[in-house]
C-alpha cells in the first residue's frame, strides 16, 4: 500500500521533475561545464582550461568596468525604487479619491514592453529633438547628451530602471498594507501614537517586514538583471560607460562568440542571484517574522 502511494507520488511529480531537469538543471550544469572551457561557436572541440576564464575576468578591464557599473546601477535603482514604491503606496492608501487611477498610472510601466518603452525614452532624452532638453533649453540650460555622454549615461539608465520598477514595488507594498488590520493602527492612536509618523514607525513598518524584505530582494535581483535598456539604447557605450554584467555576457557570447568566457560570466551572475536569495531565506527571514 505504502509503496503504491510512493509510486503514485513519483508519477505525479514526474512531469514537473522532468521539466525541471531538462529545462533548468541540465542547461545550468552545461553552462557551468562550459565556464571551464575555451568553447567558441564554430570551433570544435572545446578544451578544458580550468580556471583560466576566471583568471582572465580578474584582469579584464571590460569585465571590471561592467561589474562596477552593475553595482552602481543596483545601488541607485534598488533603494530608490523600494523607498519610492513604499512612499507611493502609503500616499495612495491614504488618498481620499483617485486611488484606482493613480495605481493604474504607476503600474503602467510594469505591464508595458521594456523595448518599446526604451524607444520612447530614447525620444524623450534625445539631445537635440527630445522634449527634456527642449524644456531645459527654454529655461536657458544646455541639457546633456543623456544617453551618449559617459557622465550621464548610467544615471539615465538608472532613472529608466526606477521608473520601470517603482510601480511594481508600489503594488507589492499596497498588498502588504491591506493585510495590516486597521484596528491595530487605531489602537496605537488610542495608546498615544498621535503623529502619523509614529503610527508608521511603531505599527505599519514592523508589520510590513515580510513584504519589505521580499520587495528589497526582488528589486535587487531585478536591477542586477538589467539588460534590455542597455541593449536597445546604448549598447554598453560610450567606451563601456554603460556596460553591465548581462550585456557583457551577451556580447562576449554572441558577438565575440566566446561562449566559454560568457558562461563564466553567467556563473558569476548566478552566484550573485543565489547569494541574494540565500540572504532572503536564511538571515533576514528569522528577523522579520513574528511567530
Amino acid at each position, binding site marked *: 500500500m505504502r509503496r503504491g502511494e510512493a509510486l503514485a507520488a513519483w508519477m505525479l511529480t514526474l512531469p514537473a521533475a522532468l521539466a525541471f531537469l531538462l529545462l533548468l538543471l541540465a542547461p545550468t550544469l552545461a553552462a557551468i561545464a562550459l565556464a571551464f572551457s575555451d568553447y*567558441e*561557436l*564554430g*570551433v*570544435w572541440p572545446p578544451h578544458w582550461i580550468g580556471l583560466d576564464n576566471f583568471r582572465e575576468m580578474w584582469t579584464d578591464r571590460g569585465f571590471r568596468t561592467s561589474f562596477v557599473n552593475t553595482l552602481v546601477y543596483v545601488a541607485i535603482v534598488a533603494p530608490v525604487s523600494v523607498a519610492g514604491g513604499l512612499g507611493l503606496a502609503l500616499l495612495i492608501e491614504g488618498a481620499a479619491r483617485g486611488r484606482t487611477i493613480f495605481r493604474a498610472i504607476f503600474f503602467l510601466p510594469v505591464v508595458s514592453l521594456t523595448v518599446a518603452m526604451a524607444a520612447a525614452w*530614447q*525620444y524623450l532624452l*534625445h*539631445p*537635440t*529633438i527630445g522634449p527634456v*532638453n*527642449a524644456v531645459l*533649453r527654454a529655461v536657458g540650460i544646455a541639457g546633456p*547628451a543623456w*544617453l*551618449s*555622454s*559617459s557622465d550621464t549615461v548610467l544615471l539615465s539608465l538608472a532613472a529608466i530602471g526606477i521608473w520601470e520598477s517603482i510601480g511594481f514595488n508600489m503594488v507589492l507594498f499596497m498588498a502588504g498594507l491591506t493585510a495590516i488590520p486597521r484596528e491595530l493602527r487605531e489602537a496605537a492612536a488610542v495608546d498615544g501614537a498621535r503623529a502619523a509618523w509614529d503610527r508608521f514607525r511603531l505599527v505599519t513598518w514592523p508589520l510590513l517586514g515580510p513584504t519589505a524584505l521580499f520587495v528589497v530582494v526582488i528589486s535587487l535581483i531585478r536591477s542586477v538583471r538589467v539588460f534590455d535598456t542597455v541593449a536597445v*539604447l*546604448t*549598447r554598453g*557605450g*560610450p*567606451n*563601456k560607460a554603460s556596460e553591465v554584467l548581462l550585456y557583457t555576457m551577451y*556580447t562576449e557570447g*554572441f*558577438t*565575440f*562568440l*566566446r561562449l566559454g568566457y560568457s558562461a563564466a560570466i553567467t556563473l558569476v551572475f548566478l552566484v550573485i542571484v543565489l547569494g541574494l536569495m540565500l540572504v532572503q531565506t536564511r538571515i533576514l527571514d528569522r528577523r522579520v517574522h513574528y511567530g
Partner: protein
Amino acid sequence: MTLQRRTLATGTTAALFAPHVLRAQGTTDITIHYAQPFIFKESYDAIAAEFARREPNIRINWVTTPNYEEGMQLILRQAATQMQVDLSYQGFNRLRLFAERGVAHDLAPFLAREGDPARHGYSPAILSLAHFGGMQAGLAYAASNPINFFNADLVRRAGGNPDAMPTDWPGIMQLSQRIRALGGGTEGMWYAWPGDDWMFSALLFGHGGRMLSEDERDIAFAGPEGLGALRMLDRMVREGGMPNLTREAAQQAFAAGRLGMFFWSTAVLRGTIQQVGRNFELRTTVMPVIDPVRGRLPTGGAAGMLTSRDEAKREAAWKFLRFSTSVEGTTLMVQNTGYVPTNQLAIDEPRWLAEFYRANPLFQAATRQAQLMIPWYAFPGANSVRVTQTMVDQQARIIEGRATPEAVLADMATEVRRLLPRPRG
C-alpha cells in the same frame, strides 16, 4: 548569357547519363539565408522571380535574420550541429571568420569551370572583396561605401551651395559651424564612428593607411595615417562642432531636419529617403577627399557563400549565387537597394544601369566614388570582432574630449596588439 549556358551544357554532356545527374534533373530544394530583410527583401524577391523562370527545377526556402550578427550566429550554430542553409549572404567583414572556421566552400573551382571570371564581370577588384583566409570565400552581392547625406535646405540657409558642396574636410567643418549657428538646436554634422570599425577605416584608408602589416603579424595603423585619422575625428568635434550622439539619435535628428550633414553608408539610402519623406530636400554627395592620391574607401555590404554539405544542393545553390551576382542579378539588386553594383559589366556597360541612375540621382554618390573602394579589412583570429569593439571604445574618448589623438592611438595599438593571434615559433 546564351553563350555561357552553352559552355555549361557542353561541360556536363559527358556526365549527363551518370545516375546522380539524372536524379538531379528532378526538383532540388535549397535553403538560402540573408540578413536585413528591411534592406534586402525586394532585391532578393526580384532576383528569385527571374531565377525561377530560368531554373524551374530549383525550389528555394528562405531564411532571414534581422541583422548580420544573428545571421552569423545562425550559421555557426548550424555548423556545430546540422547545416541546413546551403547558401548564406553574410557581411564582408565576417567572411574571414567563416573561411577560417571551415564553414565556407572555396568558390575558385566553381568559377574556374566557366573560364576567365573577368569575362563574366568578376574583375579582380570585385573578387577581392570576398577573398578571405587564402580562398575565394564568397562572391560579392551588394557593395556599399560611405557617403555624405545632407539637408539641402539647411545648407542653403547657412549660405552653402548644395550643388557644390565642399570637397575636403576643412570645408565641411566650416559649413557645419555655419549650420550650427542657425540656432534652435540645429547641429552641423555627424560622422558614424560608433558601431564598428568601418567608418574609422574610411578615415584611415582615406589617408592611405592600413590596419595590419602585409604579413598580418603586427599592426600598421599606429603610424602617421592612423594619427591623421584620429586627429580628423578630433577636429570634427573641435572645429566642426560635432555633437556626441548615438547612431540612432543622429539618424533621428537628421530625419527631423535638425542635422545638416550625416556621414554613413549608402546602404541606408532607401531607408533615409523614406524617413525624411517631405520634411526637407535630401541630397547626397561623395565623401570629402583626404589624400587625393593614396586615399581609398572601405567596402561594406554582403557576399554569398556556399555552406552546403550536399553535392546536389551545393550545385543548385551555386547556380543561384552565380545568377544573383551576374550582370542581370546585380542590376536588379541596385534597382531595389541603395548599393553599388558588384558586377563589372553592369558598371562598364551603360545599357544596364545608366537609365536608373539618371532617374535616381541620390543613388549616384556611392557609384561616383566606386573606383576608390578596397575591401573592408577583417582581423585574423578568434578576437576579430573584439578588435573592432576596442577601436570604437577608444574613439569614444576622443569624441568626449577625454584624451588626445596621440594618447588614444597609443592605447589602441596596445589593446589591438594584445588581441591579435600570437605568431607561432
